[in-house]
């Protein structure tokens, strides 16, 4: 069955007017989040992730462009559509004078029904059951973050939007949250995860959009992006001869060398052919290995490319 699209933005743009200048926070953003995916929204601090989430959640008015949630335009149907979503907002806003449990009760009341057993259940999931009665102002940033995640789990949303959900968490907390995200994904929920942590996105997401200076500079399935720059590393006895031999092969995209290795970009299916060509030409092959990009490599490469393009323009 073909997957539907849960979030679709078209030409989404936001600029903020300050007294001194106009700040372009999000620039012509076009993304499509498939139903049931864990979609990573990756970008450095200040790249426009939170502003985009603000627009998706009806908190910030777009300057231009449109947003569709669940196939419907956000403009008119915003509250109705947002009832089908849950979110973890930046800084985990909560009522400081209320206990963790009361905070959850407040937001449950807004939607009508208060299920106390469900409140206990989500407090247990995020590991806050013991401190649920303390005022949330006494919570650490990590505990507030956990409470915010508990709030997101309270309803049964189709879409969960998470803005930097592991901020302030200790390593075990990060692992817990990662597990929760995976579990939600396994339940068929669509997760939109904003983060500046590459390994976080790499580990849990199946789609990713890379954002820089308010623009999407790359997007697609994580696997595809990671393998987009796969290289073959070859150690031979004569690098120059090997380099000359392979230079004219049309299906080899790039050849780079250093003192020890040849680095070749080519379709994986052609890798045995490269080995055969070298051996037939009398070049001794000591080592051949495939090196995959990490998301970090990809991310840094994409940002670098974008800077170069901006410089050339």
């Amino acid at each position, binding site marked *: 069955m073909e997957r539907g699209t849960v979030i679709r933005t078209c030409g989404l743009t936001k600029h*903020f007017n300050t007294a001194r200048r106009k700040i372009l926070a999000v620039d012509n953003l076009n993304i499509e989040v498939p139903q049931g995916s864990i979609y990573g929204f990756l970008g450095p601090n200040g790249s426009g992730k*939170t502003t985009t989430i603000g627009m998706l959640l009806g908190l910030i008015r777009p300057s231009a462009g449109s947003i569709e949630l669940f196939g419907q335009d956000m403009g008119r149907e915003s509250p*109705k*559509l947002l009832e089908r979503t849950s979110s973890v907002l930046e*800084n985990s*806003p*909560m009522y400081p004078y209320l206990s963790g449990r009361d905070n959850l009760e407040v937001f449950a009341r807004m939607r009508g029904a208060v299920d106390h057993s469900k409140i206990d259940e989500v407090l247990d999931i995020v590991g806050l059951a013991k401190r649920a009665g303390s005022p949330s102002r006494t919570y650490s940033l990590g505990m507030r973050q956990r409470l915010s995640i508990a709030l997101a789990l309270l309803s049964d949303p189709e879409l969960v939007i998470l803005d930097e959900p592991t901020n302030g968490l200790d390593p075990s907390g990060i692992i817990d949250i990662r597990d929760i995200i995976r579990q939600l994904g396994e339940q068929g929920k669509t997760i939109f995860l904003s983060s500046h942590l590459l390994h976080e996105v790499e580990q849990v997401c199946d789609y990713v959009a890379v954002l820089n200076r308010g623009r999407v500079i790359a997007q697609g399935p994580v696997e595809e992006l990671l393998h987009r720059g796969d290289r073959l590393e070859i150690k031979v006895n004569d690098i120059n001869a090997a380099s000359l031999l392979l230079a004219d092969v049309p299906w080899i995209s790039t050849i780079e060398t250093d003192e020890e290795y040849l680095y070749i970009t080519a379709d994986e299916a052609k890798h045995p052919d490269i080995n055969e060509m070298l051996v037939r030409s009398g070049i001794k092959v000591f080592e051949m290995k495939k090196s995959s990009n990490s998301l970090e490599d990809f991310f840094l490469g994409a940002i670098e490319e974008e800077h170069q393009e901006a410089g050339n323009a």
Partner: protein
Amino acid sequence: MLNQLKTEFFKLGKRWLPYVLLVVMLVSVLLPIVINYINYNDILSKHPELNDVEVIINPDGSTEITGLPHPEPGSSFDFESPFLARQLDRYKQSLVLPGAMQSVFNSVPGLGMFLVIVFAASVIGNEYGWGTVRQSIARGKSRLAYFVAKLSTSAIGAAAGVLIAVLAGFIATIITSLLVEGAIVWEGFAGWFFTSLGCSFLVIAVYLTMANFFAVALRSAMAGMAVAAAWFIGESIVLALVSMSTGWLAETSVYFISYNTSQLLSTGFAEGFDGSLWKPVLILLGYIAVFAAGAYRVFRRQDLAA
């Protein structure tokens, strides 16, 4: 909408601020009654002969004292007795219904204006500071429903506070009336009471919507309180200056909030509602509508960024 309203009262019930404001209001209403009663008894215990003295106010405003005991030649009582008799009468008037309720109605909206500014600005303004306004809207609350629930909570909370303070004052003055006079004259009281209560609500509502407007526009409880209080004080100063001028400038004074609130608080409380009070009522209702609609317009278009 009803869910949101219930939620607002759930949150409000867990805050200390409304209780503190209510205690301040109750103290400001009840303390003068207690002090006046103590003073009244103090004078009577020292001068029991003044118990039968009566102060009559003549149509020309002058007062006449009857029942003063014959002074003994050379005694200090000679000089003090008319003064003490008048003072005793003033205390008596402030303790016996219906006059006693006038003091209550003077202090309720008087201090209430400031308290309601603090209350209304906190109800909406703190949500910006805590970031919880974002949490609510992001969870599918319509901005109209959220705004109306917030304003209604402020209005109902403030009205409840006024009502509790007035009722506390009413009960206290029933007790003092019975202690001082032994009986209560109810004639014409109900009409005057409800007119005064209505005037108090109206005066409070103007400052409530004003504080709500500034808290929304400035996204802060403190800023909302500060600007609304500055308006209250600043307008009184400007009104005093405008009133001293002549021509069209002097005529603008009738459109000031404080001019119209004092019309209601002085004329309304002293003489009850008559036709001359319609103009201040309509002007104040106009201010309420402008502040409420303006606040919603700002809120509807506001970016709720972190």
